[in-house]
């Protein structure tokens, strides 16, 4: 093995580089070219001066963030919500396995179609729907609790229950959608494997355990790594819409905080600094998880 052979390898596979070309060019132009913009976090950015000519601020905005009253609270809330939703990660996989093992084809197709429909409800409507159905005075929940003669909890107005409401409504909305990729991966299983397993007397459970799950592993681990890499990046819109004065102590997360400060006055540098902090943490997490996964399962992103 030497440089010459590697070169030969490159030459032989020129077709592959051609396949990569459009993606590489687009990424360079629209993702890498604007990256000089992170400088904003280290400058007193003034739009009139432009990014290059704005005066340097050093770590001023980072310090401001670390010293801010909300720093620890928002980080904590963000982590609670994202770790909680990480726990629900296997649910779409289970759903995919269940769907895969349904024999009645028509029911299966119907089930699958229904399960992914909630994904299309926009966040604004989704939160509106939650408020109506979970309302402590008139909602569906109140009626259900009424049946067993108990008083319904105020789900939307409780700080302690906020993360549960957020995460489980998310599961409801996206579980079907998220399972699609796993169903597709299962479709790649060679049916002759199942046949062989049946002949060998394997039970359903064994087939799931020894055929399906190994088939799903690479996809599942890849998605899990990406998910961990996005740990601090809990989406902003839904949390923001769900916030109210009663649950704010658990619902103020990084992204909503940045939004509020950024919106009140255009503090570009400050919000850039918080974003950069977020990015760096996520990137470190990603690298750690990726290394771990490489050791444990031989799956890795790079």
């Amino acid at each position, binding site marked *: 093995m030497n440089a010459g052979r590697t070169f030969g390898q490159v030459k032989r596979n020129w077709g592959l580089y051609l396949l990569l070309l459009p993606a590489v060019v687009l990424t360079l132009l629209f993702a890498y070219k604007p990256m*000089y913009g992170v400088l904003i976090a280290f400058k007193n950015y003034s739009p009139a001066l432009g990014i290059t000519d704005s005066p340097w601020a050093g770590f001023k905005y980072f310090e401001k963030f670390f010293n801010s009253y909300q720093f620890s609270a928002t980080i904590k809330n963000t982590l609670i919500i994202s770790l909680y939703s990480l726990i629900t990660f296997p649910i779409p996989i289970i759903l995919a396995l269940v769907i895969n093992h349904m024999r009645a084809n028509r029911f299966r197709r119907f089930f699958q179609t229904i399960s992914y429909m909630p994904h299309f*409800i926009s966040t604004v409507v989704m939160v509106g729907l939650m408020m*109506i159905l979970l309302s402590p005075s008139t909602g569906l929940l109140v009626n259900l609790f009424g049946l067993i003669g108990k008083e319904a909890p105020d789900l939307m107005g409780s700080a302690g229950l906020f993360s549960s409401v957020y995460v489980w409504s998310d599961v409801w909305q996206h579980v079907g959608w998220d399972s699609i990729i796993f169903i597709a991966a299962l479709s790649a299983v060679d049916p002759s494997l199942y046949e062989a397993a049946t002949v060998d007397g394997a039970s359903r459970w064994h087939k799931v355990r020894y055929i399906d799950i190994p088939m799903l592993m690479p996809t599942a681990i890849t998605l899990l790594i990406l998910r961990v890499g996005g740990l601090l990046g809990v989406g902003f819109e839904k949390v923001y819409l769900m916030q109210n004065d009663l649950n704010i102590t658990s619902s103020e997360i990084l992204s909503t905080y940045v939004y509020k400060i950024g919106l009140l006055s255009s503090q570009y540098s400050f919000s850039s600094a918080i974003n950069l902090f977020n990015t760096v943490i996520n990137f470190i997490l990603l690298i750690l998880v990726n290394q771990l996964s490489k050791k444990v399962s031989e799956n890795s992103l790079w």
Partner: protein
Amino acid sequence: MEAVTSTRVRKIKNNRSSDSVMEVIIYVFAVVFLLILIYPLYFIVIASFSDPSAVAGGQVWLYPKGFTFDGYRELLKHDNIWIGYRNTILYTVVGTVIGLVVNISAAYALSRKDLVGRKLLSLFFIFTMFFSGGLIPTFLTIRDFHMYDTFLVMVLPFSVMVYNMIVARTFFQSSIPGDLWEAAQMDGCGNLRYFITVVLPLSKAIIAVLGLWIAVGYWNSYFNALIYLKNPNLYPLQLILRNILITNQMQSGMGSGEAAQIAMRLANMMRYSVIIVATVPILCVYPFVQKHFNQGVMIGAVKE
């Protein structure tokens, strides 16, 4: 020999009974799950035919209350919705085609273990998932390329979707047997021809999933339009619907002006019909996609 077969048969029988237990569990689970899923969806449908005050007041349960088509009628009064439909369909179709070509081909190349620089190229893409220059420099870049307020900005600059690329790469790695390429190579087949004639036909499932993801992404997106478009004739459906639906700022900004009250009443009326009107077209795509990953795409190719 005899004994072996009989234990086998017994084992299969045992498994049959445990299988049917599992079957029952699966269907019970499925039905309960289905109910939980369906009710809110059903609620949206009946709410779209109901008096909006009754809906928000929690009086709509099992059937529409104060049955009315007002929500739909009101929605159809906005003629810019048709322009929005047209634009969204265009963006979705063109964007999905571009997205599929760019991401699937790159993903395949990255899935090949004999690609020199594979690790670095993967990092090159993954890095952009976590690190971006932010909105302002990206906007300046787009503007410098004279793409601001054009059709192109809606389908090209953001067509590299690294997440999708990684998923596709994983699929290629785990589902396309490596010996296929070796066999093809022996036959003197080049990378490009192999990719088009062998890999793509084997990858219907992943193309279907990615196509669906990208299409739904384009169908639902409004943010890029908000930032990079200013000509209302280029606005996609979701941006137009958003402007009709969001009224809370108006409410606080206009005191309790009558106009704000009316806008809010109309928005409430259209809240649910909007979901139906905006979602039904993209829902129709699903059955076409679904059939591609129902089962066993691999058998034929491997046996040949």
